[in-house]
Structures are given as C-alpha cells and as structure tokens.
C-alpha cells in the first residue's frame, strides 16, 4: 500500500532521515516508535511532501507521490492528522468537516459517518473549532482527515495531552479505521497504546530504521520496544 524506499530527508542542509524504508499495509496499524528527535514527525512530513526528499521515494499503490506537489498527496488518498491538531479555529465543526470533504467533492454521507464515530462532534456541530476542548479538537482533526475517505491515515501522536475518556474514543476510532481497511501509520510514544493498537512497529533511531517488530515479537521482546521510547 504505502511504501517508503530509502527515503532521506531533512530541513535545509540538515539531514534527519537516512534511508528510511518500510511499508504500511491496508487494514493494519503500523506504529512509528522512537525517542524525541528520532525523526518520527519528519518521516510523516516527508510522506506528505512537506519536505523535499534528498533520496529515495514514497509510493502509494505504485504511484510515486514524492514527485508530486504537496497538495496532490492528500488527493491520492492520504489523510494526515498532525501533532497539535491544527484546526481552522475560526470555522465551525461543520465547516471544518466540509473543508475536508470538498477537496475531492465527497458526498455529505461521509460527514454523517464521522458524526456516528464521534457523536460528541454532532453536539458541537455549529460551534467554532477554537472553542472545543482538546479532546474534541482531536476528534475533529481526525474526522476532517476521515472526510477524505483516505486509503492511508497518518496520525501524529493523536492522544498526546488528552484525558482518559478521550484517549479511549480516539483509540476506538483508530481501530475502526483499520477495520475498514485503511492503512494507519501511527506515531506514538505511549507503550500501552502501542501494545494495544499496533500490528507492526518500526523502530526509529537517529533518523534510521533500527528494526521492525510484529505483534507477537512485541510480546516476546518488550524491552526492545521500551528502549526506543521516552525522551
């Protein structure tokens, strides 16, 4: 589905990623795990075309994304929920979802689907996004990305700083996305979330993939996973 092959990228002349390769499959959750500064968010930005690649390429079902302008990447079916949510604060919940929906002219049904996954958003439908709580904002950020009907969903630390009930709602929605056949790439630092959600884990260190773990390997070598978490 989504494949990275030998991707090197960075900011200006400062290289962060060094030949990163992995593949995210449909109907699976791939967790990107690494300490702060390991290059997790940079990897996601490189996929979205927000950073020019120094080498390698990103493909989605055989289509090379890395040669396209950044705004074409979502049109090919990649939804992105960035760290810190980044909503359109001056727009209402309804308008935020509409802006997500209208890129590819998706029908209104998709909004109904999002509201069924996050009923809280239906209660806040006419409220401006900057008046929502942190958890509600995260739901809206996810909902807006889901309005694209993505094939791949990139979630950058979606539960960071949220209260437990909200974390549960976000995790349930993530599982639902996976069960619908979406390939989910999840950047996560919480061990419990990784153990609960991940089908595969890619371990990032200093901008390089140091290894991958399957679900069973995570249980067998918990220490290997834990050593890549934290500051």
């Amino acid at each position, binding site marked *: 589905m989504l494949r990275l092959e030998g991707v090197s990228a960075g900011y200006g002349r400062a290289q962060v990623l060094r030949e990163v390769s992995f593949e995210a499959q449909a109907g699976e959750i791939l967790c990107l795990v690494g300490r702060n500064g390991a290059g997790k968010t940079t990897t996601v930005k490189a996929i*979205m075309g*927000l950073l020019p690649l120094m080498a390698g390429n990103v493909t989605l079902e055989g289509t090379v994304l890395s040669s396209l*302008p*950044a*705004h*074409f*990447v*979502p*049109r090919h079916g990649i939804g*992105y929920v*960035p760290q810190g949510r*980044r*909503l*359109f*604060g*001056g*727009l209402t919940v309804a*308008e935020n979802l*509409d*802006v*997500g929906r*209208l*890129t*590819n002219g998706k029908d209104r049904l998709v909004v109904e689907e999002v509201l069924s996954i996050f009923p809280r958003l239906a209660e806040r439908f*006419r409220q401006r996004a900057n008046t929502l709580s942190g958890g509600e904002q995260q739901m809206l950020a996810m909902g*807006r990305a889901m309005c*694209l009907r993505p094939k791949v969903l990139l979630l950058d630390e979606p539960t960071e700083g949220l209260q437990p009930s909200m974390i549960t709602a976000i995790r349930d929605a993530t599982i639902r996305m996976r069960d619908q056949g979406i390939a989910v790439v999840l950047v996560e630092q919480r061990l419990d979330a990784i153990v609960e959600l991940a089908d595969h884990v890619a371990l990032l260190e200093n901008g390089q993939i140091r290894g991958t773990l399957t679900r069973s390997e995570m249980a067998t070598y918990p220490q290997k996973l834990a050593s890549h978490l934290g500051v």
Partner: protein
Amino acid sequence: MTADMRKSLLLHGGVLLGLLALQYVLPAYHHGNLARVMVLASYAMGYNLLFGYTGLLSLGHALFFAAGLYGTGLAISQFGVSAGVALAVGVLFGTLVGIVIGALALRTEGVAFMIVTLMFAQAGYLTILYFGQYTRGDEGFVIALADRNISGWDLSDPSVRYFAAFIVFSAALLMCLTVVKSRFGKVLIAIRENEERARMLGYNVDRFKLAAIGLSASLAALSGAAYGVLFGYVGASFASVQYSILPLLWVLLGGAGTVLGPLVGTLFMFYLIDLSSGITTAYMLIAGVVLVFLTLFAPQGLMGELRRRAIRWLP
C-alpha cells in the same frame, strides 16, 4: 435554509433597504457623502476579501483602484467610448492588473508580500506621473459632464449618482456574501487560519490565493471605475500609498472578516474626519485619539466586537 442564513439574509437585506430609503430623507450634503462612502466601502469590501478572509495583507491595492479609475477615465477621455463601456474596460483592466501583480507577488509571503505589493503600487503611481501627457500627472483630469451618462441616465445628478453608488455597493455586498458562504470562501478562511493544513487537505493554496487577489482587485477596480464616472475626477492621488492604507484602516476599524465591517469602518472614518475637521485644523489629532481608543476597546473592529459579544452568526 438554516436559521443563521435567514437572519443573515434579513440583516443584509435590511441594510440595503435602509441605504435605499436614506436617499429620500438625507439632506443634500450627507446624501453626496453617503454615495461616496458606498463606493469606497465597495473598495474596502474587496480589500476585506483578501485581508479579512484570506489573511493576505496587501499594501498595493491603490494600484487596482487606480487601474479601474484610469482604465475608465482614459477610455472616455482618450478613446471617446461611452461611460458604460468605459466602466467595463476599467473593471477588466483592474482585474487583469490584479491577477498579473498577484501572480508575481504570491511568489513571496508575509512581510515580503506587503513590500512587493507596495512597490508595484508605487511603480503604478510613478507610471501615471510619467505619462502625464495623457493622465495630466498629479493634477489629474475631469471627465466631462456630457460623458457621464449611461443609457440616458445622468450620473452627475445627485439622485442618479446615489442610486448608481447603491447598485455598486449592493453588487459588492452580494458578491462578498456569496463568496463567504460558498465552498471557495470556506477554503479562503481555511487558508487564513492555517495555510499548511489547507494544502494538506488537498487544496492548491496558491491558486486559491490568486483567485482571491483577482476577486479583490475586481472589486477595487469596480469602485475606482464607478468613482470616476460618478464623481467625475481622475487623479494620481488615488494611486498613492494613502489609498492603499485607507482600505486597511477601514477594514480594521469595521471588523476584518465581517461582511458589513468595511461599510461600518468607511462610514465611521469618513465622518470622524469630516466632523473633527469642522472643530479644529488639527483634526488628525482627534481622529488619532479616537482610533487609539477604538483599537484598545474593540481590537476586532466594530462589527468584529459585535460578533464576538452578541451576534455570533454574523458572517
């Protein structure tokens, strides 16, 4: 139609009806003033589309206003076309200038965008002075009374002029309301709020910004063209930096990102200068103090504050 849309329709319809009715009750002096304010408010509305809704701060809008003004004025004075055709020429010319300058200026962003638009406007101002044999330079020129009529309507007649200004204003208001409520408008607001996120949802942000500049310039050009045929004067001062700053000021005072803010801001500023200059020659001092207080107590502008405090559905 949602309840908010109904309220919005009632409010804006009411404002238009009120403006229409005012022409029958206002004394001659204020009658003329309001016609001028409506034309200038249309200019401010165009500016608001770009600044208030898209988040692009241009310091070169006087160029688009002047392009409409001179496009119309020169079409009449140099080529002898009728006022109606000249008006269309002015609007088209101003829109074209807007799109070309926009395409160049959008290669920059932030402060650089402001500087580049300012520089283009200054270049336009100097061009008007340079071709003084046609434009009459700083002095400007007057459009003859005989040329200021459309289909037999004498635009120099106060009643006709007021009605024509009202039509221009109504067109600008309807255009802004339509844009703001449309998908296109929502994307512009999304770009203002977070450009990168809008791009990450698949929108070609540069194209939307260019379209916003084109639309904004077309309203500025329409106002400039209308100003020429309604008030009969075409002068280089309208291309000066002052006329780029004024719409910014009107929009900020009235409320950036509100449809009626530009009208309120233009009206407020016009009468603030008018009234204070009747009291003292140091009228800018009074105007300055009022503006400082307004900025302190209504930082989002008059309509912006109204929306924040009371009418949350205000578009």
